[in-house]
């Protein structure tokens, strides 16, 4: 469909607004993280940093000029980064594995209570975190799982499994039944069908569920604050610590925040296709 010039201009304005709205704040955070601290407090503000510095990143990485307590900052930061990756990956792998098994069962197998169980599990998405916080803490203490990867992973599991399950079920429902029926006639068992035939077909859905779970776990704050106080502390809990009672280190906060944003940004850039299909699979179909 050919567009008139006026329509093209209108469309152009629309795109500009949309892109600025979405990326502007992210640009501003990155620009702030690259600005020397004294320049941050200048008026009028500069939309582009007048001078660039990697100082805040150097402090996080632990090289370059090192102030007395920066060794600890760098060490804490490295640990937090590793913890964020470990807990998010663990939560993703286990959630998606269980969701795949369960999703197949809820989509293809008839068993007593199927509908009720499914809706109860999905309904838990609506439960606010505070409602379960204290009892959950008692459970974790009792099982001696506080500040362990197992403990945090279990909690993430309970939080992200429902969404992953919902997604995987709808992915399986959308696959044509005929292939499975053909395999069954050939004498393949249910599990062979699931792992050999259905799973490869559902791969894009699997990737989508993984991305959504990973991003969810990566951005968690309240859960790790309570359940990962030290050894398993992730980035999201560490970053606010750069504001102490006496001094708020905006440079470090923005640099740390930028690093915490890089992983999601990379995922969106490279895996967006799967992400979009995943976000819509559960809701439209």
């Amino acid at each position, binding site marked *: 469909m050919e567009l008139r010039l006026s329509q093209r201009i209108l469309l152009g304005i629309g795109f500009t607004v949309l892109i600025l709205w979405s990326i502007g704040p992210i640009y501003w955070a990155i620009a702030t993280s690259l600005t020397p*601290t*004294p320049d941050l*407090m200048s008026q009028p503000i500069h939309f582009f940093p007048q001078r660039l510095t990697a100082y805040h990143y150097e402090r996080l990485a632990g090289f370059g000029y090192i*102030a007395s*307590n920066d*060794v*600890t900052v760098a060490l804490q930061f490295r640990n937090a980064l590793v913890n964020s990756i470990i807990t998010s990956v663990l939560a993703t792998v286990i959630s998606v594995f269980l969701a795949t098994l369960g999703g197949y069962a809820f989509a293809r197998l008839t068993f007593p209570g199927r509908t009720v169980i499914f809706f109860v599990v999905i309904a838990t998405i609506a439960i606010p975190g505070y409602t379960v*916080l*204290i009892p959950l*803490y*008692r459970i974790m*203490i009792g099982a001696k799982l506080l500040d362990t990867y197992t403990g945090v992973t279990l909690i993430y599991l309970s939080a992200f499994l429902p969404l992953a399950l919902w997604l995987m079920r709808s992915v399986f429902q959308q696959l044509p039944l005929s292939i499975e029926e053909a395999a069954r006639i050939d004498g393949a068992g249910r599990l062979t069908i699931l792992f050999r035939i259905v799973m490869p077909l559902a791969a894009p859905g699997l990737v989508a569920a993984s991305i959504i779970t990973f991003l969810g776990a990566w951005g968690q704050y309240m859960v790790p*604050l*309570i359940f990962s*106080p*030290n*050894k398993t502390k992730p980035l999201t*809990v560490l970053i*606010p*610590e*750069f*504001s*102490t*009672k*006496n*001094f*708020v*280190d905006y440079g470090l906060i923005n640099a740390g925040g930028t690093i915490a944003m890089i992983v999601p940004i990379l995922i969106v850039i490279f895996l967006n296709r799967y992400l979009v299909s995943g976000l819509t699979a559960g809701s439209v179909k």
Partner: protein
Amino acid sequence: MNKLLRTTVALAALALAMPALADDAKPLAGQSITVLLPSGQSPNIASDFEKETGIKVDLQMLSWDDIRPKLITGLIAGTPPADVTEFDWSWTGQFGAAGWYEDLTPLIDAESIKDMPTASIFTVDGKLLGVPYANDFRILIANKDHLAKAGITKMPTTIDELIADAKLIKEKGIAEYPLGVPLSPSEGTSTLWYLMTFAFGGDLFDKDWKPLFTSPDSGGYKALQFYVDMLKAGLIDPASTGLKDSDVHQMFMDGKVTFDLGVGPGWVGAFEDKTKSKIAGSTTLGLVPTESGKTVSYGLPEALGIPAASEKKEAALAFVKWMTSKDEQIKLAAEQGLLATRTSAFEELNKQGKILDGDVVIEQAGTVGPLFKQGTPTWYPQFSSAVNNAINQAAKGEISVADAMKSIADETAKAQQQ
């Protein structure tokens, strides 16, 4: 620090930490405890303590705002959030009533308690629930350069002088808004208003916990009226309604504020740190100015407490004693700018010339009393929240000063009944 001094400090601390077990140097060696403190602590705490006692410390740090939810979650669940935890003065009423913390009275020697005047703030019904490790009380901090440029040679001692100085600085274009006052709905807004209430000759409550700030000639009323007037006169930044105390300190460090009102000597370290502050070298301290000219202050110390549910109380106690010992206090003053809680440590540091305007600080320290004479009440959080919300609304011009004071009184009455 040279090696000899380090050894001396270590030995002295050890002697202090283990007076009863002097014959066996490390009786608790091999044990491990968790310690939960706000971020910004010296990174050497865990290793130094382990070196001296053989007790392994798992030092957990969280940002100040995150400490409390973390503590409460553990305490309500009936488990120790750590073996030694931060214990803020404002929690005393609640934590005391809940019986969550070990009574340390029989465990800390009377000599030490006498050396720490703020220990009384952590005492509920004769039980000492925390040993103060970080002192904080209100004082006036100003930018020396601004004062010099305006030709002001002495720190203001009365409110009128403060206003006159601020006006002069504004007129000369040295600072657009000379008075730094946090007015957002946050704790720092409340704590400064308490101080200003005292500065205007008032008090918060009478002995039956009846509010003393509702009549127009009361200190609290005048304090809020002072804010409103200063906002109108352009001496307080109207943007302050969105600022927490840490934001105001940041503006002071950027040279945008002449007088930082809601501050304690503990911040001097940050103000004088060249990597953080643009005005390093220009900080000066003065006594809190009042309506009458007779200075006032109150304490907001932080302590170390041992949750009653802790299973490693002996090792935890050793840590508390070590961190609050005179030598460690002196060392932490150098390492992280901690303000010593022991009078002896404080005097020692001043003698060594380590405290900026030390004589002023000591004089102000002498006027420090508790915020609440009967001890921090259990409904303190509701009271504080009512105070900062009402002040914020009055500063924004949404409600009158009289209505703000009435709403604080009403909220307090409600909280007292619950």
